[in-house]
């Protein structure tokens, strides 16, 4: 029995040529589908992170306001 997979050195490719026109199956459908799902969740979670950051900024400002109000309230208290 002879093997057909073994190539002689002279049969090997010696140059690369670009495909002309539409190359047909350029992208894997499965990879594109998984990419689309991944992007969907990345966008939603990025938005969640942004909302969280805004919430944290509000918390910080609220804490500042509370501190100022507490200070003003203690200054306004009658000294005994």
């Amino acid at each position, binding site marked *: 029995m002879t093997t057909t997979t073994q190539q002689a050195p002279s049969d090997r490719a010696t140059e690369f040529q670009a495909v002309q026109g*539409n*190359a*047909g199956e*350029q*992208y894997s*459908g*499965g990879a*594109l*589908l998984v*990419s*689309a*799902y991944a*992007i*969907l969740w990345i*966008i*939603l979670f990025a*938005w969640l992170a942004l*909302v969280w950051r*805004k*919430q944290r900024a*509000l918390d*910080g*400002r*609220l804490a*500042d*306001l509370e*501190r*100022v*109000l507490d200070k*003003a309230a203690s200054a306004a208290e009658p000294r005994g």
Partner: protein
Amino acid sequence: MTPARARALDALFLVLLALTALLFVSEVFFIFFKAPIEARMGIVQKIFYFHVPAWLGMYMGAGACFIGSIGYLVRPADLPDAFARAGAETAVVFGAIGLITGPLWGAKAWGTFWTWDPRLTTALLSFLIYVAYLVLRSFAGDGSGERRFAAALGVLGAANLPIIHYSVQKWGGQHPMVISGSGGGLHHPDMKIALAGGFLCFSLLAPLLLWARTRLELARSRLLRAEADAVDLGLDTRTEA
């Protein structure tokens, strides 16, 4: 709002959020394991089941921005302004999902990620209008003049929405028109269920995100007012080092 009502609304929000999460898990399972593979396009057609519902989410956000903007122009108040701003942000998030997932499908179906098809072009234009709205709100301050200007943009921006919808019918182009009034082009019942599931998931998710964002925006407006009151009383609200 009474504390009891606030607690009831919180409970409703959490119940709807849990239901939406559960529906999303079921929907993903159904799309991957039950819905059939399309004969010509193959597995990539399954992008359709959340690409189209994402545009529904974008329309809901844009609709909220329109309603909030009209409301603010008629009677300026924090609630319609917050609703409009949350709507614009929702429109941008879901528009981005639609604009990215569509080209991923197009790469396989059309052999190119992007083409200046009427629907793609009008959809991109609409997305950019809401991005412009958010840029305006972020950088132009929060005075009544800026709010009115943003509200006008929110109203005018909505004019493009019906154009996106009818662009396929009026100007043709490459974009598929699978969903139609005459029953649509989904021939397998599981394809119809997958699409209906997608619509259900996104039509729950978009209002929930809109709700959460509106609430945060209202809290920000209340805080701004409280800070202004504190300054009027001679208190310095700046962070102490």
